[in-house]
């Protein structure tokens, strides 16, 4: 039983020691990043079954200021952590063989973002959550600019919106503390039914805006297209695959555990649907492949939020499954797209024709990713799609189902265009050399098919995570039970 | 065995008879047209002389398909003859034959089409394309009328439909369904390729259309085919609308009357363009036929 605190502590430590390691040897940072993420995954796997049977509560006493901050890792957090760190691991492998300029500071920030995201997910204290959100955001701002050029502008927009989000968050935390008197999540959820409904709504709203920026809700997600398309590929992947997961987790905690108010779920659903539809419609017209994928990410986030806000156990399970699949597929898509862009020398979709033969692995990765998102049978996206349609129809939300299916058709429209261009066109332009991404693609593909053919692999975990989210009593008793 | 032999002989006999009768009708038609145009015209037995002459001449051929097409055309129309009751000479009285006859006539047209287009002369192709277009034009109202008749009499055999009109002149479809009969008459003019529906042959325009390359025995077989086709079409009309007949003589007389009327009507008009022809068939005849059949059904 390894102490899960190490998941946060070790990356942070290694991160800040990076300049030192760089001084020793130029290549060391990359390998160390790989080792750290591998270590994280190892820690998680050691604790996996233990946490599944009994959520783990760890109190960090002593070296923090007087508020007893605790970590809470239940099945839900476990799921999120696994995704975040596995994605981190795969991207560290990818980083070894990168095709852009990065140095030790990159790895510093990379490890920091992983630590921050993991922290967001594991914490049981509200202010701690805020701190980790800030860590993650700052790391993200920094990571974005490694591509130079237009990424400066993108990062700047991100900073602006992020700053506003932080303000909202801080106000929300302040209100919470003022009204409930504590910042511990379990206590808040225990005491929140006593709040006046209006106050609770305002607080929830403030939180939603603060966290919605990370969770990419409309209209707070407008930084996404710029950042995703200008940042280096592995940054985009980590943002899309890991940070968004943390964002959804935090959103879930606020809406389900801390301040449960059924009326607000309908707002969340509407926002989710708008995000979905807007994302898909705008993605359809894009000429730049990374922007297209960015809008697709936004749309998928909207979809997940919509599903989760239906507030039934099977819906949440379906939404979580969709989230996991989204992370896997988006990382695959972005990695492949990165190689294709480098090979074609341009981000425009028009320029990508005929790369199917020249860059088989990247094209195959892209196609598998696209087919997964669209829901081809035996791919993971298919199972999650079926599950989510099942849950929406069971909840009698027929219009939502129709809108989801409409969005899928628009998705089909724009993804298929790219796949066709890759494989069925001829190429007469130059093809540039690119990095080898065989291992990441292979590993991700194995995940895609494993989940597609044997979803039973994680259904147990999903069910537990869903039930944990829906009722907050277990959370409260686990943390405060002793008191 | 004997049965088959007698049937075969019967069949050959009927074929020869129909061919002869058809040529006779063709001669009569020429005479009538000539008289209407205030001239004497050729003798009535002229077609016989033509056929004999043609079979005596040498001809050219453009290859296998030219031969095959001609044989198929003639063979098809002979096969069709088998199913048509000619007065008392009914070889096949089983059901389901009306539609069959129409389609078998199509084999003949297809054969002729194939053969003549295979000659390589574009005028033949033009003629065939017109012929097929026109066929679409007149078949449609014709089949509508047939639909009505089959539905009314609950049988699709020509013989059966003829029998259903037994029992006196007033039972003829001519009098029970006069509108349908008139329409079928108009269609008959189209089917036999008389003016104003002869754009497909158009002697002065496309060199007689499909038969432009045929000479000698080919032209002879085409003439015979045409003659038998005329008989088949007339026989169909008589059986469906004029109550058939008990013996071949009265049958032939009925056919003759219809033929003379058709020729006389046909000689009055100039030629329609193809699309005018098709439009013509699809306007009033089709509408009237549909109304008529609706009456029958309800």
């Amino acid at each position, binding site marked *: 039983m390894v102490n899960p605190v190490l998941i946060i502590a070790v990356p942070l430590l290694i991160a800040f020691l990076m300049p030192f390691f760089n001084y020793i040897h130029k290549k060391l940072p990359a390998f160390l990043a790989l080792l750290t993420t591998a270590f994280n995954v190892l820690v998680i796997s050691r604790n996996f079954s233990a946490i599944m049977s009994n959520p783990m509560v760890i109190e960090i006493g002593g070296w923090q200021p007087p508020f007893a901050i605790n970590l809470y890792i239940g099945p839900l957090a476990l799921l999120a952590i696994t995704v975040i760190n596995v994605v981190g691991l795969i991207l560290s492998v990818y980083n070894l063989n990168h095709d852009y300029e990065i140095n030790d500071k990159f790895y510093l920030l990379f490890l920091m973002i992983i630590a921050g995201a993991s922290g967001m997910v594991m914490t049981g204290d509200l202010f701690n959550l805020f701190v980790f959100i800030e860590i993650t955001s700052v790391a993200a701002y920094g990571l974005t600019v490694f591509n130079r050029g237009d990424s400066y502008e993108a990062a700047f927009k991100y900073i602006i*919106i992020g700053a506003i989000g932080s303000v*909202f968050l801080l106000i929300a935390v302040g209100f919470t503390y003022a009204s409930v008197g504590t910042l511990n999540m379990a206590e808040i959820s225990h005491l929140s039914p006593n709040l006046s409904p209006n106050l609770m709504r305002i607080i929830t709203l403030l939180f939603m805006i603060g966290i919605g920026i990370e969770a990419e809700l409309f209209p707070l997600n*407008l930084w996404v297209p710029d950042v995703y398309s200008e940042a280096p590929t592995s940054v985009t992947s980590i943002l899309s695959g890991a940070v968004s997961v943390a964002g959804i987790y935090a959103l879930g905690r606020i809406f389900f555990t801390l301040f449960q108010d059924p009326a607000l779920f309908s707002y969340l659903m509407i926002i989710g649907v708008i995000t979905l539809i807007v994302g898909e419609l705008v993605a*359809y017209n894009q000429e730049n492949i990374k922007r297209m994928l960015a809008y697709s990410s936004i749309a998928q986030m909207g979809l997940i939020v919509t599903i989760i806000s239906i507030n039934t156990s099977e819906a949440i399970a379906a939404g979580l499954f969709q989230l996991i699949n989204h992370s896997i597929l988006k990382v695959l898509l972005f990695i492949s797209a990165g190689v294709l862009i480098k090979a074609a020398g341009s981000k425009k979709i028009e320029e990508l024709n005929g790369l199917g033969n020249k860059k088989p692995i990247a094209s195959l990765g892209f196609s598998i990713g696209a087919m997964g998102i669209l829901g081809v049978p035996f791919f993971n996206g298919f*199972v999650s799609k079926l599950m989510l349609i099942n849950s929406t129809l069971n909840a009698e939300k027929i219009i939502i189902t129709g809108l989801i299916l409409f969005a899928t058709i628009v998705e089909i429209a724009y993804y298929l265009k790219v796949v066709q261009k890759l494989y069925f066109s001829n190429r007469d332009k130059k093809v540039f050399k690119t990095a080898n991404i065989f291992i990441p693609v292979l590993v991700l593909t194995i995940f895609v098919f494993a989940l597609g053919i044997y979803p039973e692999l994680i259904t147990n975990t999903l069910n537990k995570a869903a039930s944990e989210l829906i009722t907050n009593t277990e959370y409260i008793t686990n943390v405060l039970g002793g008191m | 065995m004997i049965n088959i032999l007698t049937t075969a002989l019967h069949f050959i006999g009927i074929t020869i008879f129909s061919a002869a009768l058809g040529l006779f009708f063709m001669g009569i038609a020429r005479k009538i047209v000539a008289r209407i145009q205030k001239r004497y015209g050729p003798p009535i037995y002229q077609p016989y002389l033509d056929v004999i002459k043609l079979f005596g001449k040498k001809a050219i051929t453009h*290859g296998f398909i030219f031969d095959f097409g001609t044989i198929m055309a003639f*063979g098809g129309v002979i*096969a069709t003859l088998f199913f048509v009751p000619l007065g008392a000479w009914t070889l096949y009285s089983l059901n389901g034959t009306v539609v069959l006859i129409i389609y078998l006539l199509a084999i003949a047209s297809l054969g002729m089409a194939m053969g003549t287009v295979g000659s390589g002369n574009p005028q033949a192709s033009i003629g065939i394309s017109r012929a097929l277009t026109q066929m679409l034009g007149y078949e449609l109202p014709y089949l509508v009328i047939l639909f009505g008749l089959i539905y009314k009499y609950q049988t699709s055999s020509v013989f059966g439909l003829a029998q259903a009109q037994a029992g006196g002149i007033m039972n003829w479809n001519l009098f029970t369904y006069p509108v349908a009969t008139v329409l079928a008459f108009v269609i008959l003019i189209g089917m036999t390729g008389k003016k104003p529906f002869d754009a497909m042959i158009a002697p002065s325009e496309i060199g007689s259309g499909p038969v432009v390359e045929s000479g000698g025995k080919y032209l002879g*077989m085409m003439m015979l085919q045409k003659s038998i086709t005329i008989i088949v079409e007339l026989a169909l009309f008589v059986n469906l609308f004029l109550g058939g007949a008990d013996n071949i003589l009265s049958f032939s007389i009925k056919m003759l009357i219809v033929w003379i009327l058709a020729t006389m009507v046909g000689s009055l008009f100039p030629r329609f363009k193809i699309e005018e022809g098709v439009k013509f068939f699809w306007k009033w005849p089709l509408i009237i036929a549909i109304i008529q059949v609706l009456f029958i059904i309800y």
Partner: protein
Amino acid sequence: MLINYIFIPIIAAFFAYLLNKKGKYIGSIITSLISAYILYQLIGLYGNWSLSQNINLSIMGNDLQLLFANNPLSWLFGIMTASATLLISIFTIKSQENYKLSSAFNFNFLILFGSIIGVVFASDFLSLFIFWELMTWTSFYIISGGKKAMAKKSAYRYFVLSAVGAYTMLMAIFMIYSQTGSFAIAETANYLQGISTTHSLTLMFMLALPFLTKAGLFPVHIWVKGAHGNAPKEFSPFLSGLMLKVGIYGLMVVLFLLPFSKVIENTLSYRGLSVFSYLFALLGAITTVTGTILAIRQEDMKKLIAYSSISQMGYIIMGIAIATPLGLTGGLLHMMNHLIFKSAIFLALAAVIYRTGTTKMYEMGGLIFRMPLTFATYLTAIIALAGIPPTNGFISKWVIYQALIEKGYLFLAVAAFFGSIGSFMYVFKPLSTVFLGQLKPQHEKIKEVPFLMQVPMYILMILMVLFGVVPGIQMSIISKISSFVGMEAVNYSLFTIEGAYGAWNSLIIFNIFTGGFVLSLFVFILARKSKLVGLLDTYTSGEYMNDAEAYHFAYQYYRPFDRMFDSFAAKSLTRAYESLAENIAKIGNGIRKTVITGNGQSYAFYAILFFVILAIAGWII
């Protein structure tokens, strides 16, 4: 084990792909062997009507059962699929030797084969949907691989249209599942009978939509022309011969297995048939007429035959929708016959494309002199298509006519007649412009196609005549299907079929026809022998002709007829769909321009505005 027949092709697909990279023929050979094997196995399944197989899955605490069963309808479709795959794969062994994407083709083709087997043997909607999706995806990839410029766009349109239908069905499936807890077709049938008519009709229509699209019925027929015309030349026979039929299979499931008739028992009826069934039949009639008119206009031979396929589908739907024993029999017969003669036509055309490299009819001519066997196949096939005795096409058309006349459906009959006579016109066009007429100088040197490509054509020719003379073979399975769906069977014997107003005896017809032909041959031979002259030596009113090109009448063969329908054809349904898609795209663009300004300050403003709006909304509500 039914599942094996689905997964063996799918697994073999991977081998075919890899091995085909080594040698060009290996992929097609593997496909042929696999399809032959499966065909053999399926034939052995005849009569084993109670064979079934379940796969149990448990996802998210829900127990799912995937059911597969063997029944006459599925069996027939399985046999049809395996035979078609076999014939086409034999053809492709030679015809794809220069095709760049042959590995991908065989890969997708094998998976397609497996998934169609999955579709027809599934007895619950979930399995059907899974394999239906697989089928659509693989055929999409195959069509995209066509050599023509429009291949990608046509495949794309095909897919989007199919997806709309498929997702509608998905919604219906899950709506039913949430109420019944099962996907099985039998359960669905029970459920649909228990709920209100409007509700169940909506559900059934939603279920039927993807099948209508796949079958190419009006108004979702617009993908057919593009897909057939631009697909690789060997795939068009499969598309037209089989994939359209899979849509028919689905429709039969909806119409007969979910008893449409029981559900609509108490609705309006027209001459003894519910209005809704009549609606389907009417759609079929419109499809027939539209397909015929549009076919006559085409200059590209594959597109012409594609439209012809749609109109034949209309026939089949008319037969099936009127739900009488004769109608069902006629529809099914026509379906089987259409598979045979349409594949033959497309294979013949593929052979021509293989040798000449073009699909435009006015660029060819006189090919009979160089490719006589191809011509013979084509001729037999169009005789069957036009429905002329003694081929099989006539029998099925005759039965359908009997069915329509029996019930007095005048308008349907008019459409059927129109389609039939019109078919003379459009089948003749390729015959005369491609095979007959003047041989172009650039085609002087071409030869007949290789033997392996001829074999499928011969087999199909024999089948056409065989089934024409002995319809009893087809009738035996069709009568089993009739009883399976609860309809009386039609009386038949080896050579005869009994209709409503008459019986059909093929043997007699065949004999008469032969007799007539012999007689005519006799006359021909007795006359004097004729002299063979060249093609350019024709009657030219005194002009001297040396240019074959100018002497070949092919372009706008039916111009007078086309003129009549010019305005009709100009109102293209395709353009309506296209403008719909464009409008959706415009909305997206509009949103992008107004909201996503790229301006950091405005984004910040949005955040605050968002809060204000939601706060007010929360206060008020």
